[in-house]
Each structure stands twice: as C-alpha cells, then as structure tokens.
C-alpha cells in the first residue's frame, strides 16, 4: 500500500481543520471561544506589524519630505551665503575704494570742486588702458588727467556716459613731461608698453639716482604740474648725449581702485609749472 504525497498533504490539512473545529468548541480561560483567542493571538502581531510598518512608512515619507525640505533650505542658505560673501567682497572693495578716495583728499592734489571720483572697473596693463566708471553719467573731456593718491595714472581718451577709458602712462603712445622735485632736471617719460617707462632727454650731468621721484612738470599741456609721476629704477650712461634712464609709475596701476579725474584743470589756469 503506497501513500501518495497528495494524500498526506490532504490529511495534514484535514488535521488542521479538525483542530480548528475542536478549538471552536472549547472555551478559553478568559471565557471566549478558544479559536477566537487563537485568531486574536495571530491577528494581534499581524496588526502590530502592519501598524508598525504603516508608522514606518509614514515616518519614512515624512523623513523624505523633511530631507527634501532640508536639502532645499540648505541649497537656499548656501546661495544666500554666497550672496553674502559676494556682498562682503563688494563691501570690502568699496571700503578699500573709500580709503583710497580719502587718500585723494590728502595734501598736495586734494579733491577740488571740479574733480570727479571714478571706480576702476577694468584694466589691461599690457595694453596700457584702464576703464573707470563714475557714479553719475557725465562727459569728461579728452586728455583729462587721472590721478591716484600715489601719483599719476594717465589721461582720458574716451568718455561715454558713466564709462571712461584712460590711456595709462605706461602705454606705448603715452608721454609725460617730468622733472625732479627741485626742477633742475627736466625730461620726458615715455611709455613702452611694459611696466617700465623710458625717461628720455636726461642730460649726462644730471644728478639722478635710483629711487629718485619725478613729478609732472606741466610742460606737456596735459597734466598739471607737481603730481608724482614716476620713480627712477635704472640709470645708465651711454655713448649718446643723454642718460639711459628707466622708471616705473609711482601710482600702483595694478591695484588701484579709485582714480580722480581732473576735468576742471586747464594748462591756462595752472600758470607756470612747479
């Protein structure tokens, strides 16, 4: 006699069914039907598990939502932080510019009634040009001198509303009439398209040494006299009639933020040079 697996399986199911039927007839110690208490014993963990899973799903959903909000807030705060940093940089820049502007109000060539303060927005030292902007739109005459607290910068070559382009003293086409502080040596500082200017027409007997500062003489009819223009960095004698003199601008063209435009100055008003 062989016993098939299907028969065994059916028998097992029958046993389970019979046990359940028996449990239906028996009372539990609490007084209810035993089968009900069994079902409850099975259902309660399932219910708890379902409740737990539901809470878990809700918590996960809330967590994901909150995480999304946190990420969005974080992104927003980062953006705001970047804006604040940019503002800080701009404010620092403005502060530095104000300090430079205050230097322009110092003795020597202070702010005059017609002077215009302009912010440097772009410079190309190799090309010898600089772009500056004024607070208000105005027309600045061509060849208007531009200076900083340290010295001469150049002259205006073009003006358009708030934007003004300067030709720096280092420009290859620029030339400035200079002299020593005592006025004994007069020369012409010519830009060479590099950081260094060539000071021409310095007599061989001139007492020039390295570090000597030269000022504008006003003889060129463009720049007012007495403005520090260049500092001698190299003096060499040659076969020629004049000394070979090299100089660098007194003004720190690479770092200057504020320049002072002097449209009110005219060679006629200035009289003799310093």
């Amino acid at each position, binding site marked *: *006699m062989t016993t098939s697996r299907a028969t065994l399986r059916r028998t097992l199911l*029958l*046993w389970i069914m*019979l*046990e359940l039927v*028996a*449990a239906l*007839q*028996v009372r*539990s110690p609490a007084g209810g039907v035993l089968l009900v208490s069994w079902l409850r014993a099975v259902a309660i963990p399932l219910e708890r598990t379902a409740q737990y899973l539901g809470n878990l799903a809700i918590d996960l959903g809330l967590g994901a939502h909150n995480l999304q909000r946190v990420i969005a807030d974080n992104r927003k705060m980062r953006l705001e932080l970047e804006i604040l940093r940019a503002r800080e940089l701009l404010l620092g820049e403005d502060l530095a510019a104000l300090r430079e502007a205050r230097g322009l109000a110092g003795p020597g060539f202070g702010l005059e009634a017609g002077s215009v303060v302009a912010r440097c927005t772009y410079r190309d030292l190799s090309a010898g040009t600089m772009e500056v902007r004024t607070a208000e739109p105005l027309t600045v005459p061509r060849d208007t001198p531009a200076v900083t607290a340290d010295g001469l910068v150049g002259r205006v070559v073009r003006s358009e509303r708030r934007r003004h382009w300067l030709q720096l003293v280092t420009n290859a086409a620029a030339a400035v009439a200079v002299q020593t502080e005592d006025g004994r040596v007069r020369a012409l500082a010519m830009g060479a398209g590099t950081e260094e200017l060539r000071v021409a027409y310095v007599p061989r007997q001139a007492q020039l040494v390295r570090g000597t500062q030269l000022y504008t003489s006003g003889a060129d009819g463009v720049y007012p006299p007495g403005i520090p223009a260049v500092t001698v960095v190299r003096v060499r004698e040659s076969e020629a009639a004049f000394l070979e003199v090299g100089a660098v601008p007194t003004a720190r063209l690479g770092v200057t933020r504020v320049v002072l435009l002097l449209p009110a100055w005219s060679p006629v008003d200035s009289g003799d040079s310093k």
Partner: protein
Amino acid sequence: MTWLIALSVLTLVVQRVLGMPGLPSWSPEILLPAVWIVAPPLLHRERHWPYHALLLGLGWDLLMEPVVGPGGISWTAAALAVAALAGLVAHRSTWAWAGFGAAAVLVVVTVRGIAYLPLGLTTAPSLAHVVRSAVLTALWCGLVGWLIALDLPTRWQRYKARRLH
C-alpha cells in the same frame, strides 16, 4: 460496504457501552474501532483508509469525547502509521494483528494527547492505562485476526456440505 459501515457504527456503539457504569473499569480501555484501521492494510485491501479512519475518529469524538476533531486526527494518524508499518512488516499472522493493534493504540493515544494540548484539555494518560489499553486492544485485534484466519464461513459451508452427504 453498507455492512462495513454498519459494523463500524456497531463497534462505536459497543465501545460506548463498554464505558457504561457497572462494567469493569478496564473495559473502556479496549479500543474496539482499532480493528478497522488494522484490517485494511493486513488484508491487502486498497481503500481510502485515511478518510475512513477520519470518519471513524469523528464518530469516536461524537460518542466518547468532549470535543469533535482530535479523534479524527488521532485515528487518521493511527491509520497512516499502521499502513506504513504494514509496508515494513511482512507478517500477516495473528501476532501481526495484535502487534498492529497495539501500535494503533499507542499512536491514537499519543496523537490525541498532542491534539488536545493546544486546546487546554490535555489529560495525560498514565503509563499503566496506555499499556493496559495497548494489551487489551492487541488481544482484541489478535482475536479478530485469528477469527479471520479460521475462515469460519468456508468451514461452515464445508460442514453443511458434509451434513448433506
């Protein structure tokens, strides 16, 4: 088939009667229906013995037990066990009937105890009760086996034939 069912019902009724007051205290320990689960495998009858045992167990429950169900489980388990045992043991003698009957009792008692366990109704039978029940049932099954081996109907017909001559 009908007379088999009738005999099964009769067995259960007699089993009930064996538990009536006034009869010896050991008399209900004979499990008379055990013979119905021992006989099929020993007589090489292909039957749906687990389901017959189930019905037998349910009838047992209806007449003798407080709840219906565990009897069906225990008696089908006994039927399965005896069938499996019959596949292993080649003997079909009277002793085999007795031994199978004892095994059926052991399975019925054990499985019924297990089935009652989750219901909180467990009444662990004493070892003496189990042994007595196994022995008495073995005797009962052995008796049935011996009677079948005697083949009384054939003998009766031979006896009648001799009388006619």
